[in-house]
């Protein structure tokens, strides 16, 4: 439950051993590499020509693989289903299998084959589009009954094909007769909102006719070029289109045969990407005339393995280890108990803690579980979610981060069962309908009376105060350990005196152990202390007074308003129960419709309704506790800004390296 100690590591090797060492470090995945700074002896490494060439080569190969994956995905016969798009395939393998991924694939040939197939598909697609366009154009002239090539003018007259909106046709006809009487209009067909027509005109009147056409929103159209009658040509086109289909199917069949390469391509892409990253990392190294220096950080856990494996690479390798210095900024690696570890990714979502900060993951884990459980707060839903998350974790191909999230949510769902028992919430069934055994276990029923509603709200505020005070406690500890004992006693100690001391005194007053003035005295002393001491940083006396008042107001009001924010847990828990209750009521109403149909409808409403309820409330139960953690809790103490410990390794979302075998 802490930030793991790290050692500064410097590896110095002869240039000839560089690749071997880097490969080993990548396989190990234990060293976070930092750039080496220039000094009198070492200069920052520039990539050698062969390394630059290799880098370009990997970038080129990645683009080749991207083309192949894109082409195969686009032309797949069976499109990926909903879950397939949500969950990417994972490829578990050993590090050695991963390093040999390229061996199982002849990418050059595959690329040549797929490029050829793509060209064939493009030709087919273009031809199909052209034929369909021609068919559509011909469809407007089928009533003409003569070859379109014969529809043409002579020396002194012309034929213009046009389409006029049906609603404008009559007005257009009248105006054409009035303005250009020496024309003849032949209406050929009606398609949709248009009338297709031919206008026979004298060459010198063409401009006038065009003007009339434009006045009525009509437009000239080009007649398809064919020596056939439109209907005959359409039949021909249909034949040609039908002939294209087997060819397209043949090509798609060949593409389908290549689909078996997709898993290997996915792995190879990750391999190329890892090699590209490896060369990129080399620019962080330092060099002398004959050696390469690699600087970085290794955790205490990873240290023995790193030393052992690097020593196996060569005897001519110098490995220096040192504790972080004053000016160093080591990366942050969290080390927590197995059951708390899944919550680390949620803490890191906000940002890894500063390296001098206390790792609050265990506090975060406990409070998140409790809040999540409170928001769902139902025994039935809790059981369903625990089972669902465990099954998903076991059988679906998720990466480590998602598995961690599922584990964290499983713990939260277990807490939902506890809160469900305590609040008598079992699938939203009304409390009075529950068996006596279930009712007897309940200690809080928020809808029983006004008082019980207020008690549940009070419980939420109390949980919030405990949560926030634990954050203040962490800050007190950090200040104390940093030697700022006065700050710790004033800034955090007075908050404890006000809320913990005042709270305890208040309870003692309530049970008549202490008189009221004592409780008032404790709270008053804390507030007076704040007024006098919180402005101590200001230079002048008026400044101290104003800052003291401002800080006291901010601390007290901030705490109270933050505590009220925790009542959202009650609102969200109530939402789960109420929706469940409404679903049960609806199901009860349809039950009486008929003996069989009624039961079936009832089951349908119950299953669909409760599934909807769980899903919609799952979102709120995740987001709002997270907000309470990030805003109300972290706001009291947390300084992020730590650099995440990211060792050089295989950073892939789809290739799952078996660490035991790879180690």
């Amino acid at each position, binding site marked *: 439950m802490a930030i793991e100690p790290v050692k500064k590591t410097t590896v110095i090797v002869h240039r000839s051993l560089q690749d071997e060492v880097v490969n080993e470090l990548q396989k190990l995945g234990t060293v976070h590499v930092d750039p080496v700074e220039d000094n009198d002896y070492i200069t920052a490494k520039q990539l050698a020509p062969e390394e630059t060439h290799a880098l370009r080569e990997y970038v080129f190969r990645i683009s080749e693989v991207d083309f192949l994956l894109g082409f195969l995905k686009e032309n797949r016969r069976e499109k990926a289903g909903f879950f397939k798009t949500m969950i990417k395939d994972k490829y578990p393998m050993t590090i050695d299998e991963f390093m040999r991924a390229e061996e199982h694939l002849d990418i050059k040939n595959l690329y040549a084959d797929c490029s050829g197939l793509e060209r064939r598909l493009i030709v087919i697609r273009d031809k199909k589009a052209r034929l369909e366009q021609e068919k559509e154009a011909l469809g407007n002239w089928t009533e003409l009954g003569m070859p379109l090539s014969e529809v043409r003018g002579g020396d002194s007259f012309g034929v213009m094909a046009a389409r006029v909106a049906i609603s404008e046709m009559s007005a257009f006809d009248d105006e054409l007769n009035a303005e250009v009487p020496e024309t003849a209009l032949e209406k050929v067909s009606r398609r949709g909102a248009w009338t297709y027509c031919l206008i026979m005109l004298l060459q010198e009147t063409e401009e006038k006719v065009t003007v009339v056409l434009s006045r009525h929103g009509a437009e000239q159209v080009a007649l398809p070029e064919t020596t056939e009658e439109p209907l005959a040509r359409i039949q021909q086109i249909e034949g040609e289109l039908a002939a294209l289909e087997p060819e397209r199917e043949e090509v798609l069949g060949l593409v389908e045969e290549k689909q078996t390469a997709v898993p290997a391509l996915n792995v190879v892409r990750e391999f190329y990407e890892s090699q590209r990253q490896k060369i990129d990392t080399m620019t962080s190294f330092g060099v002398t005339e004959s050696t390469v220096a690699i600087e970085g950080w290794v955790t205490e856990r990873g240290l023995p393995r790193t030393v052992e494996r690097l020593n196996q690479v060569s005897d001519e390798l110098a490995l220096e280890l040192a504790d972080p210095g004053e000016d160093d900024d080591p990366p942050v690696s969290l080390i927590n108990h197995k059951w708390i570890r899944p919550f680390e990714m*949620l803490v890191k979502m906000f940002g890894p803690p500063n390296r001098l900060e206390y790792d609050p993951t265990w506090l975060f884990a406990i409070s998140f579980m409790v809040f999540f459980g409170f928001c769902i707060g139902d025994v039935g839903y809790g059981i369903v979610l625990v089972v669902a998350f465990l099954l998903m974790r076991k059988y679906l191909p998720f990466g480590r981060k998602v598995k961690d999230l599922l584990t964290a949510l499983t713990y939260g769902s277990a807490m939902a069962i506890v809160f469900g028992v305590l609040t008598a919430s079992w699938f939203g069934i009304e409390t009075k309908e529950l068996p006596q055994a279930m009712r007897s276990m309940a200690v809080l029923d928020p809808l029983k009376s006004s008082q019980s509603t207020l008690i549940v709200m009070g419980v939420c505020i109390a949980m919030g105060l405990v949560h926030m005070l634990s954050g203040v406690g962490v800050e007190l500890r950090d200040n104390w350990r940093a030697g700022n004992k006065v700050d710790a006693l004033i800034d955090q100690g007075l908050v404890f005196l006000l809320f913990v001391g005042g709270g305890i005194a208040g309870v003692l007053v309530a049970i008549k152990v202490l008189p009221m003035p004592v409780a008032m005295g404790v709270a008053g002393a804390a507030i007076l202390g704040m007024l006098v001491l919180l402005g101590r940083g200001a230079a002048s006396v008026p400044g101290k007074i104003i800052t003291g008042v401002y800080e006291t107001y901010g601390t007290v009001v901030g705490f109270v308003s933050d505590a009220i924010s925790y009542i959202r847990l009650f609102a969200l828990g109530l939402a789960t129960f109420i929706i469940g209750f409404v679903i049960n009521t609806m199901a009860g109403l349809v039950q009486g419709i008929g003996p069989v149909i009624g039961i079936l409808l009832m089951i349908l409403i119950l299953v669909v309704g409760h599934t909807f309820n769980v899903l919609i409330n799952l979102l709120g139960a995740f987001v709002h506790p997270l907000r309470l953690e990030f805003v109300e809790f972290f706001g009291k103490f947390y300084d992020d800004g730590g650099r995440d410990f990211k060792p050089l390794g295989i950073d892939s979302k789809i290739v799952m390296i078996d660490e035991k075998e790879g180690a």
Partner: protein
Amino acid sequence: MVGALAAVAKSVTSAATWGGMTGYQWAILGGALAFIGGGMGSSIGITYANHVASGILVEDPDKFGPLLPIIAIPGTQGIYGFITAILVPILFSPLTKITAHKGMLVFFSCLPVAFVCFLSAIYQGLSSASSAAMVARRTEEAGKALILPALVETYAVLSLILTIYLFTQIR
């Protein structure tokens, strides 16, 4: 003057109807308004988020997973409205027996949810749209993108809490 006001207050408290409506009708109107406000706001808010998300999904359908919760977030205000509407008959049962005065109080108690949820869902939708754009560029930040719109929802939650608190005072 004071005596006249007290008489008016007494007449309102004991009247069978107020403004031509019975207590039952006022209470139902309050519950319905709460849901209308929350539901309408959520619909508009989700639509805003959808506009951006659909554009992103056209380019990259694989982002459906991280985008879905961000689009769904403005939907909660509709649920708060729904809860309020359901709580009215549950907490004030039998609703048909409620006095005009009490019905009016229920009606006014429903207004925080009706108005705050309506507006906060719309603004949360706009906030979700920005978060969706954030996910489009940096999918790995989907977690943070989900938290930002949730900050807007605070006031919708508070309105529900206030409404429920006011209900407890009427009972």
